[in-house]
């Protein structure tokens, strides 16, 4: 690659010729302020905050989208540039509500941080403000157009990463607004509720629907038995909310914190993950034998399932009918667990702590209600961020908590359940169980490194016994589209496909902690995702039981209650169905 010599603020350096000024500056420790830039999204150049001065060019240039040339002399700081950047932020604030203290992003808002950093101390351009109604239509994602600064990151993440293209700018000039097609509400759109718009939004224009009020109320009611279940990825990210770097395992403190909040029992969604594997491998081996409905596609990710219903309705039969781990646990809590402990299912309040905003939507799907009783199996879903806030709101000092353990029986899980939170994890867990069932040999390979990686799209052929399984793994729905089109057009024959809606899997879900604005870590940063995933693989490695079907409490569950895997009761309680949705996605 050709290199060019440039000078940045009197520092001489050599950089590849296709770098932008911003990339060159990042290398030498100069952090140019920015709002609309994201390394994995296309360049927009919308905010103009990252302007720099280039010798010989009259106008200031946006450093995110200007490429270097040989002999370029760049000045990133001068009283004039700082003034210009400050003016730009002030102009944005002109059209921004002044309610930082009431805002859910207070303390972790890029616009707020930038105003402070650039020295905005008064409002000079106060004028007429746009006013829009809050879009509360969706169970998962709340859209607040008043807080939007039109950086376009939500539009780009929805298009470039998720392939959903739900959002676009509508109207123009001062009237510009980001909405789904036809300015409709989030509910009446192809939104898959993955929540990535929330992760990349520098302000609070997109936030999750808040369910904490309902939970406080349930916790305060002595007649209600409140149960928490926590998804695999929560433990790998929750510590970030309390000052730790990504990848710190916070399982023990998280359990203690939930108990102190007043939860009567704390169970593990990983138990459901193990159970999913047991049911799913029975389903898969059946399909493999009959050759029907192949490839089988995993169904744990509710964002992916909604995507399937809007974008690939013809492939619905290929999706596994297994409920997601969360719904399996919730269903068992209000049936098996309730019966065993003489509890009235209507007096049980199940809270799912999930890295995911689509889980909020999933819990409200009519398929996940008890028809006779008219109650949902999962009463409320909160994200990692909401749980972190609840812990802080309750005055719990997370970092000084003793480590707790999950309650039994639905709190015991094998290593297979832990890795569900990372892309490739469901595949690896399935392979561990299928291999044991297909070959009858128990102690074979446990770690399928072919499937471990955070790349968006992987394919492999894995030999199990005398069979070769063609597998594919996709994370990020744009990658899923590629695989699904290959399946649809019969270009490739896979046996099993794992799809997770979010980049890197649940560890980077739409409900995970947003990196602190001071840390210079982008939301969806690859390294951050890898560290969170590693925390899960480490937990898996340190467990003595690592195959889902060897979970003794699952064996007991089938013995005492469900009968056999894939049996009648198991099918009734642990499986679900999907249906095509409108509007159709493109």
């Amino acid at each position, binding site marked *: 690659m050709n290199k060019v010599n440039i000078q940045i603020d009197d520092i001489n350096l050599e950089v590849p010729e296709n770098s932008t000024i911003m990339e060159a500056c990042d290398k030498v420790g100069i952090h140019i302020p920015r709002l609309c830039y994201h390394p994995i999204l296309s360049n927009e150049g919308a905010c103009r905050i990252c302007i720099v001065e280039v010798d010989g060019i009259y106008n200031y240039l946006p450093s995110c989208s200007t490429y270097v040339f040989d002999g370029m002399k760049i000045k990133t700081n001068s009283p004039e540039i700082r003034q210009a950047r400050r003016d730009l932020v002030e102009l944005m604030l002109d059209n921004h509500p002044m309610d930082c203290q009431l805002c859910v992003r207070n303390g972790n808002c890029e616009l707020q941080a930038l105003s402070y950093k650039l020295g905005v101390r008064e409002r000079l351009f106060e004028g007429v403000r746009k006013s829009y109604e809050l879009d509360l239509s969706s169970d998962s994602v709340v859209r607040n157009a008043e807080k939007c600064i039109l950086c376009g990151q939500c539009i780009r993440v929805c*298009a470039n990463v998720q392939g959903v*293209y*739900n*959002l*676009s*700018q*509508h*109207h*123009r000039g001062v009237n510009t607004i980001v*909405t*789904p*097609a*036809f*300015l409709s509400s989030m509910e009446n*759109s*192809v939104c898959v509720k993955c929540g990535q718009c929330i992760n990349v939004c520098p302000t609070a224009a997109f936030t999750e629907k808040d369910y904490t009020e309902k939970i406080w109320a349930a916790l305060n009611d002595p007649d209600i038995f409140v149960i928490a279940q926590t998804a695999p990825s929560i433990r790998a990210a929750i510590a970030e909310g309390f000052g730790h770097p990504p990848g710190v395992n916070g399982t023990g403190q998280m359990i203690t914190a939930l108990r102190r909040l007043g939860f009567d029992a704390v169970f593990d969604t990983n138990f459901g993950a193990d159970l999913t594997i047991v049911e799913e491998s029975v389903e898969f081996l059946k399909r493999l034998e009959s050759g029907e409905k192949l490839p089988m596609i995993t169904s744990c990710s509710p964002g992916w399932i909604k995507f399937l219903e809007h974008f690939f309705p013809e492939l619905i039969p290929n999706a596994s009918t297994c409920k997601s781990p969360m719904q399996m646990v919730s269903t068992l809590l209000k049936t098996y667990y309730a019966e065993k402990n003489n509890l009235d299912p209507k007096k049980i309040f199940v809270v799912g702590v999930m890295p995911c905003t689509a889980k909020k939507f999933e819990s409200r799907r009519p398929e996940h209600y008890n028809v006779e009783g008219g109650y949902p199996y999962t009463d409320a879903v909160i994200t990692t961020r909401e749980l972190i806030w609840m812990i802080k709101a309750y005055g719990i000092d997370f970092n000084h908590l003793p480590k707790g353990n999950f309650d039994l029986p639905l709190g015991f899980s094998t290593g297979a359940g832990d890795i569900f939170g990372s892309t490739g994890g469901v595949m690896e867990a399935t392979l561990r169980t299928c291999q044991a069932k297909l070959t009858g040999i128990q102690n074979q390979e446990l770690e399928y490194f072919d499937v471990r990686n955070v790349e968006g799209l992987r394919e492999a052929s894995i030999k199990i016994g005398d069979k070769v399984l063609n597998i594919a793994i996709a994370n990020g729905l744009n990658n899923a589209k590629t695989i699904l089109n290959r399946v649809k057009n019969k270009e490739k024959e896979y046996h099993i496909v794992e799809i997770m809606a979010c980049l890197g899997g649940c560890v980077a879900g739409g409900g995970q902690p947003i990196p602190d604005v001071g840390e210079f870590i982008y939301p969806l940063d690859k390294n951050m995702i890898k560290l969170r995933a590693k925390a899960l693989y480490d937990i898996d490695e340190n467990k003595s039981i690592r195959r889902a079907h060897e979970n003794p409490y699952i064996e007991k569950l089938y013995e005492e209650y469900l009968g056999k895997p894939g049996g009648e009761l198991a099918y009734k309680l642990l499986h679900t169905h999907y249906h095509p949705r*409108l*509007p*159709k996605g*493109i």
Partner: protein
Amino acid sequence: MFEEDYNLDKEITDYIDWCKEQEHPESYLIAILHKIQEKYGYLSQENMYEVAQKLRVPTSFVSGVATFYHYFRLKPRGYFHISICLGTACFVKGADLVLKAFQNELGIEIGETTSDGVFSIEGARCIGVCALAPVLMINDAVYGNVKPTQVSELLSSLRAKYNQEKKVSA
């Protein structure tokens, strides 16, 4: 919105098919929207949805483009579409008063259509006949030297015409 609701004219769907054979089909989006507006007078959500599905351009992008350009109408026009020239010459000669008279008589603003669907008004730039200022157009006919006091009478005669034409077609 369902596929059964697809109702674009064959002439337009043929054009979309042709566009899809070109190098950058999506770049023909505006041209397609023009044809639809020419045919139906405005862009309905159903039509835009159908364009998105057939051209394979995300629906949000189609509606984003349609709302960006003032030229595209998103609501149906009235049976009589009245464009009042608000260019310099007409304005100096009192076009604003003419506009106000229409607004008072019909109870609608620029860009709106009466609830019975008979009249819609729009502010136009120069029509090119400044000598007749103030000028307006009703559908394809040009009216010159319009006085605010004539508006009421003009609307009554149009309404009579509308009633008669409706009767004939019924």
